[in-house]
């Protein structure tokens, strides 16, 4: 049976709605940001829902207060706003305070990378992996389709601590027809390769899948790892896999060479896999106001499927 693709947020919020029926300690807070499933939560659990208005700083502070009183909190807003508008609230009241108080606050940021295609750079989000990764103890989770997004719910509700969920704003093709495949995973090795392994996260796993298929037609077998968990330390879980390769290509829909996925993998491999060649692909840091489709935007910053395939082909020839 084929799973019909839906938005990550709707898949995840459906899990929350289901869980709220049994677990009275789940509280949902948003900064005036909705979704069709959120309408159900608002209607059915009004006593465990609050909309703080367009006020992300207060969203984090209120979420902190709710969590201090024992609620498992899901706080929901557009990705750049829930990460950057209120960064110090997240740092002080979630990252710092959670060192001495048990807090379960899950920040759901919608609009990873270029996913708000025509809304421009205010709504697009290329810095969040770097910023959230920099906070000690912050779990950073980045699914690649709605099935893998939904699979993260169990971790969020069961594990104490602050977490950031980086969701795409668009409905993306389903990559995991079998839900079990994505459940409770730091990563999924979608394909094994010969010399090169791509490590991608979020939407770039969708791109990497296409790159892999293009290269396979040319008899270049490239591995593909879909990394969901970008938290500090998660790269160590790739050790045995990395040992099989000569080169790794990281792919992220975020600024490159600024401490994102590239640094996450690169700093680990530098220490533990010094002979591994690295190629980091992402968005060259800049802000663009030109409109285009997501594919055109990606082409303009060197993240098109064919461009990436060519780069990997050259890398392969050099190994």
């Amino acid at each position: 049976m084929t799973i019909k693709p839906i938005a990550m947020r709707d898949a995840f919020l459906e899990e929350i709605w289901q869980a709220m029926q049994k677990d009275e300690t789940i509280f949902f807070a948003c900064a005036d940001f909705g979704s069709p499933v959120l309408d159900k939560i608002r209607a059915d659990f009004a006593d465990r829902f609050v909309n703080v208005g367009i006020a992300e700083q207060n969203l984090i502070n209120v979420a902190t207060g709710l969590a201090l009183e024992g609620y498992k909190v899901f706080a929901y807003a557009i990705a750049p706003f829930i990460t950057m508008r209120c960064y110090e609230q997240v740092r002080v009241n979630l990252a710092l305070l959670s060192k001495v108080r048990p807090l379960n606050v899950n920040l759901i940021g919608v609009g990873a990378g270029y996913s708000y295609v025509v809304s421009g750079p205010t709504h697009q989000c290329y810095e969040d992996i770097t910023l959230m990764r920099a906070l000690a103890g912050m779990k950073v989770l980045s699914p690649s389709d709605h099935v893998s997004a939904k699979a993260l719910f169990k971790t969020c509700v069961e594990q104490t601590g602050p977490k950031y969920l980086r969701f795409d704003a668009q409905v993306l093709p389903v990559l995991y027809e079998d839900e079990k495949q994505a459940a409770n995973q730091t990563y999924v090795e979608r394909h094994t390769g010969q010399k090169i392994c791509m490590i991608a996260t979020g939407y770039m796993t969708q791109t990497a899948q296409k790159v892999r298929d293009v290269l396979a037609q040319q008899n270049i077998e490239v591995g593909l790892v879909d990394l969901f968990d970008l938290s500090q330390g998660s790269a160590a879980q790739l050790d045995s896999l990395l040992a099989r390769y000569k080169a790794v290509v990281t792919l992220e829909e975020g600024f490159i060479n600024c401490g994102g996925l590239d640094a996450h993998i690169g700093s680990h491999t530098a220490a533990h896999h010094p002979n591994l060649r690295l190629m980091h692909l992402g968005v060259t840091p800049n802000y663009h106001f030109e409109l285009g489709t997501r594919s055109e935007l990606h082409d303009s910053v060197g993240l098109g499927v064919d461009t990436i395939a060519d780069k990997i082909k050259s890398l392969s020839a050099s190994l």
Partner: protein
Amino acid sequence: MTTAINDLEAKAKWVWCETLAINKRAPETRLASSLSSIEIFVALYYGNIVRFNPKQPLDDTRDRCIISKGHGSICMYPILADLGYFSMDELQNVCKAGSFLGGIPDPVIPGYETVNGSLGHGLGVAGGVALALKRKKSDRQVFVMTGDGELHEGANWEAIMFASQHKLDNLHLIIDNNQISMLGYTDDIVSHKPLEDRLSAFGWDVKTVDGHNVGAIHAALSEQKHAASGKPTALIARTLKGRGVPGLENAPLSHIMNPKPELIDSLLKEANP
């Protein structure tokens, strides 16, 4: 526990002395800010306003007291020790390696609820706590102490709007209105005046008192705590930064000033003849 006003006044005098003594041992502490808030804390903790349990600081039956102007609450160190949260001996170790009593209090200190070194966070968190308690139908109250300079942080005003929207009459803001931030008088920097009118316009029940009259503070807080008017309450305490210390009191740059050790010695001697 007593609410006899002269007992509260005596306690305030003792806290003032202990706070000066701490500053002499640990000049990294912010003395002037901690001298404007003494009577407020004494009224809260010795006047049966805040319900607390030193043996179990996070006991669910406690009222929540969130100190947002952390640096200006060094006077809480002797109060918490006196109430049994930790040993009086610990007051000798403020700012020393290995102690939990830092130059700015952190929630590793029994009796502190949240992180407060960065200003402008306490009221918003208190709003979340107050909402949680309301939704759980708890009768516990939430007190939050801010400075007036701290109100320059915009997140406070997000919280102020939020609290009245949700009728958080279990939330009680106390503003240590010493009218001086780090670089001078708040009126010369960004004025809050008329602060009472502004808070009233935002839907709060507001009172103003002499912030060094512990009886007046106690009376106002007793009334506000039980008002249940459907409005969050604010108590503007008119205070003096650096109160009682010549050269410090109401000095525009008092925030970062310390009296000389000899002056502290003579002030303590004068207070305890």
